[in-house]
């Protein structure tokens, strides 16, 4: 599993250094079209769609874009990996960064390349980049060092990739999911590089989500509203509340399953909650569209009926009779 995912990750990494192809012009990305990581992800999506294969024997690829942060008074590229789920088994991870030609080690390299005696030289020791990954503790202080990686960029002014699978696996195992790194710790900070937003490093994590075959898994990740909010009050008001809302997986409350009642029917007028109201608020983004035929009809009656209520109303007597039947 790991080797297959790593192979694919490496291939994808190689792809990422190529000039942007059709993906960057894709209307699917919209404003994200200028985002290197989004373009890379769209290329992966198109590849797996075209070939009908799965990403490295897994079913998930997550991207994490760096944010420039000042950590211990030094600029660092930080990654928030907290959106990775417990059920996602990491297969491989790659770190992608842009080797800027303005860096000191590249100056050394270019001076040397102008000299004919240097034509067949190996990259000097100065051309290497040290990547020191560490977790972040409280108050943005340095946490534990997760790994130190040395890379020898093979091309200047190009995207590079490095396998950091062991490092990400270790971070997830230890629950330290905010990682920071410096691209070149030997250089004195002289301000952030130019065009930094496009050249921000990113991490791709290839994983196999073991929960994806569970019932309703699509709603867990793609449904962004909870049909049955908890009775404990608004979570957003709690001090440790997170915007990461993993919704409940059951469609109906367990009571309706256990007592064999129809979940949509209110059996008791004194019921402590009104399911109809629940659904109305929970699915506010679901605005039923009139069918094409209905849209063509312009009678005032139809329009009036639709705006008044989207459901049929029966009196209690009729409902009782129906239930008895």
């Amino acid at each position, binding site marked *: 599993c790991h080797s297959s995912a790593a192979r694919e990750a490496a291939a994808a990494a190689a792809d990422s250094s190529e000039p942007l192809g059709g993906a960057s012009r894709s209307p699917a990305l919209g404003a994200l079209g200028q985002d290197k990581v989004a373009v890379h992800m769209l290329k992966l999506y198109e590849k797996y769609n075209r070939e009908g294969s799965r990403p490295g024997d897994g079913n998930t690829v*997550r991207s994490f874009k760096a944010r420039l942060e000042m950590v211990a008074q030094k600029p660092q590229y930080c990654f928030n990996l907290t959106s990775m789920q417990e059920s996602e088994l990491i297969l491989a991870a790659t770190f992608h960064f842009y080797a800027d030609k303005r860096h000191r080690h590249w100056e050394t390299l270019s001076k040397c390349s102008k000299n004919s005696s240097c034509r067949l030289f190996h990259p000097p020791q100065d051309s290497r980049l040290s990547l020191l990954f560490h977790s972040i503790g409280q108050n943005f202080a340095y946490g534990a060092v997760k790994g130190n990686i040395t890379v020898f960029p093979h091309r200047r002014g190009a995207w590079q990739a490095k396998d950091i699978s062991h490092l990400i696996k270790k971070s997830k195992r230890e629950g330290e999911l905010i990682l920071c790194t410096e691209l070149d710790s030997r250089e004195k900070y002289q301000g952030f590089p130019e065009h930094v937003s496009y050249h921000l490093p990113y991490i791709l994590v290839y994983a196999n989500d073991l929960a994806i075959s569970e019932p309703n898994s699509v709603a867990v990740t793609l449904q962004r509203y909870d049909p049955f909010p908890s009775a404990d009050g608004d979570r957003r008001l709690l001090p440790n509340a997170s915007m990461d809302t993993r919704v409940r997986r059951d469609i109906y409350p367990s009571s309706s399953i256990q007592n064999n009642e129809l979940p949509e029917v209110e059996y008791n007028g004194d019921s402590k909650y009104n399911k109809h109201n629940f659904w109305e608020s929970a699915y506010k983004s679901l605005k039923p569209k009139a069918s094409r035929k209905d849209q063509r009809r312009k009678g005032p009656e139809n329009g009036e009926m639709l705006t008044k209520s989207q459901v049929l109303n029966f009196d209690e007597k009729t409902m009782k009779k129906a239930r008895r039947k």
Partner: protein
Amino acid sequence: QWNEPRICSRRYMKVDFADIGWNEWIISPKSFDAYYCAGTCEFPMPKIVRPSNHATIQSIVKAVGIIPGVPEPCCVPDKMNSLSVLFLDENKNVVLKVYPNMSIETCACR
């Protein structure tokens, strides 16, 4: 699709993520062919509806009427296909997931 056969079969259904309010975070695809299964599983069930052995027995029991309340077998998805979805997670990171059982290839009486 009223003119299609009453017997259990796959029917066309295209799902546009905008229609179910998920388009804000799903980058691609914008829509996909999901299909659905509909139709009857009446006795006798032909091979085309791919009845399971259990469905065949249930269909006979229903037709004979010895046990009250037993319904006809249901027309449900049989073979299904996965779908790759590119979307933004809650932290606005781009994620690619391959969801199993997202579109129907065949239907059956079960």
